[in-house]
């Protein structure tokens, strides 16, 4: 592939930095004895984070939790390539199907290839409450299941769109929203600005039912808690923790997205969002390790959906967008944590973002049709 040299340069920069970090890159196995993890959480560190602002030397100040708390407890892959379309929905769909999807990023549609959730539920005969997706944007509403023959919603994950929950809550209790700061949660970012406010009454009813039956949360309590939060990603983490408490699903995917505010060109807001995502990942891991249903039996995979354009690429405008398809925009990383995952380990071998689905499959014991490969270090 023509981009090999560029990809390796990106990865090498990250490796050089990691060698200087406080942890070892040895292959020593530490921590608890290996045993099968029976819960899985996938977190996309999205939408779009570059090396410069994360694991490259100048970015390390933005990710103290990933670097100093989580990384020593897990296995870090320095070179994850995304060879697909660099749009958030289609890229996230590619991660959950293990196939580089080619559909229109801006049309909410089920992926054509089976999703991780369908493989998991169909082959392992798991109930519908056992797989969930928490997604940031209205456009992600169809990501829980595919249109593939033999699969579909009957095997898919439940999809919770926190913004839609809040919108439904606002319709139900408009007085709670008067002159309120919560409106900003309802809006998507610069790249996906619209929020579908034309949701039907039935749709609202369904979401209010999700609040009460799935999350076992009253509208009032939900809104009150949302008032204490600063961003949509924080709302997503709140929902994730509520799901863990109420449903304890075996498979959960959480897509963070605040950092895509970079499209507005404000570097400070992009950095704030990265720092927030770093903190939220640590909070999630802490929640996992202190939760009786999850502690020591959960594997967490954290991976950006993709990067962003390089500073010196004349076709782009630096961190602002992800439009050039250059190596910087395609090269990311993966951090895995869990009882069967080697701690304090760095892997420089190149892997692909579509390897995650077959890797989870080979670890949990279900097959997939993904052209990706099971990552041996995480089997």
């Amino acid at each position, binding site marked *: 592939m*023509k*981009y090999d040299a560029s990809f390796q340069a990106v990865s090498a920069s990250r490796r050089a930095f990691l060698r200087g970090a406080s942890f070892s890159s040895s292959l020593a196995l530490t921590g608890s004895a290996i045993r099968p993890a029976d819960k899985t959480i996938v977190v996309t560190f999205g939408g779009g984070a570059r090396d410069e602002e994360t694991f490259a030397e*100048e970015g390390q100040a933005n990710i103290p939790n990933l670097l100093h708390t989580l990384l020593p407890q897990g296995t870090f892959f320095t070179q994850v390539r995304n*060879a*697909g*379309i*660099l*749009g958030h929905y289609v890229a996230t769909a590619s991660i959950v199907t293990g196939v*580089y999807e*080619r*559909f*229109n*990023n*801006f049309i909410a549609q089920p992926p054509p290839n089976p999703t991780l959730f369908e493989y998991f539920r169909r082959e392992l005969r798991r109930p519908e409450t056992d797989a969930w997706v928490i997604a940031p944007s209205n*456009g992600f509403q169809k990501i829980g299941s595919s249109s593939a023959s033999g699969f579909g919603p009957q095997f898919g994950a439940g999809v919770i769109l926190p913004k839609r929950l809040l919108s439904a809550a606002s319709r139900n209790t408009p007085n709670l929203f008067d002159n309120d700061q919560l*409106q*900003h*949660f*309802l*809006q*998507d*970012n*610069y*790249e*996906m*600005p*619209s*929020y*579908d*406010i*034309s949701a039907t009454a039935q749709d609202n009813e369904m979401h209010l039912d999700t609040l009460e039956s799935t999350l076992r949360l009253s509208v009032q309590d939900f809104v009150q808690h949302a008032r204490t939060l600063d961003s949509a990603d924080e709302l997503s983490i709140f929902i994730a923790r509520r799901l863990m408490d109420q449903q304890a699903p075996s498979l959960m995917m959480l897509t963070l997205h605040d950092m895509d*505010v970079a*499209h*507005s*060109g*404000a*570097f*400070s*807001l992009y*950095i*704030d969002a990265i720092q927030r995502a770093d903190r939220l990942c640590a909070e999630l891991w802490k929640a996992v390790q202190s939760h009786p249903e999850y502690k020591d039996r959960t594997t967490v995979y954290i991976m950006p959906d993709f990067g962003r354009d390089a*500073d*010196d690429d*004349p*076709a782009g*405008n*630096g*961190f*602002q*967008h992800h439009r*050039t*398809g*250059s190596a910087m925009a395609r090269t990311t990383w993966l951090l895995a944590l869990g009882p069967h995952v080697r701690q304090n380990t760095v892997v420089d071998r190149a892997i692909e973002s579509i390897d995650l689905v077959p890797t989870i499959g080979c670890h949990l014991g279900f097959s997939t049709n993904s052209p990706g490969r099971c990552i041996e270090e995480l089997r």
Partner: protein
Amino acid sequence: MTPDQLQPSSFDLYPPLARSFAVEHLTLLRQLPLTICPSFLAQISDLDTRFPIERKTLAWQCDSLAALPQAKRDALLAPLRAIAMAPELEKLDWVNSPAAFVERLSAHLWSTGQINGFHDASRELFAAIPDQPNEATRLALIVVGQGADTSRASILSKLARKGIRLNGVNPATAQQQLLEAFAKHAAKGQEAYAHWYVDGGQPWVLPESVRASAIQVSYPQLSPLRKRVLERMQSILNTNQANAEKMRSDLAAIAPTELRSGQVASDPILQRFYTELFTSGSGTQIFSTSFVQWAGRELARRAQPHTVLLRYTPRQRHRGFNEMVSDPESKVLDPEGSLVDAEMDAYYNWIEMGRIAAPGKLTVLAWVEGSSKAVMVSPKTKPNTISNQAVTIEQALASFAVV
């Protein structure tokens, strides 16, 4: 229709300069594959309202490609010709709507996994074009930090790694000396559109000597255009079918006349440039910092200025996107966040000016407004160095600027 079928009459709907340019370069255009010919036409069709240097650059590119030996040109175009096209693309009116075609082509290249091959082939093609003669010395003056806490030692760190950090600048004379430096440099050349002052807020007063030759533009000055673009954005949002792609393509299709750009400039070239700052820029409609950076970038790419003064002032505090579109006149500012934005933007401005400057011909000076801190990058500065010596802007430029 394919490019080899182009005739002089194909360009009958083009404006005069564009039509004559296309006809003059028809032999080359006929040889280009459909994957790239519309990109050339997108530039040609707007030529009547492009900067003179853009016309010159496009002519240079076309003439250089036409002058290549046939075998070499064929070899360079072969990978672009080999890209598989969708039949529906070939049916589009790519001669009269080349920009719309290019947008559809881009989506096709991404969805078919051919985007990297296209970029590689395009890069190879343009790498075969020799550089134009370029002897101009260029000066970029950048001002950041108004209203913010500027005590941080690491301020402007990305730019400072490329040059010298000056910690003893006299703040009392800095503004006046920056303006004088701008005027002095601008006086060296009288080319049209070569000297620009872009301000994110209420602008400083340029010296009398340079007011006629330099172009001054500010975020408040272009407020009428910006508000009309925001109204368009609001109407797109109101359709509940907005997405980034639709927003971009709808905004890009807005003509300067639709925004009544004559209200802010009488020159049609400036009308187009100012309009496109808001219709092709991302975030320029809501943040003054994004506006100044994008203006600096687009000036470097298009007008190739000899002298620029770019002043970043505090942008509005971040709110929900829809709220910023529907209520753009927030009085609550974010000086600290704006400084962080401007530090990165100044670094990008240095990169962008570096793309058009001949080796050894660029000086960049960034001053942290109201403070004793500045950074200079020029052929005479050493990377990542620091000077704590008391110095005026005038003395710093005398020591390090390229003349």
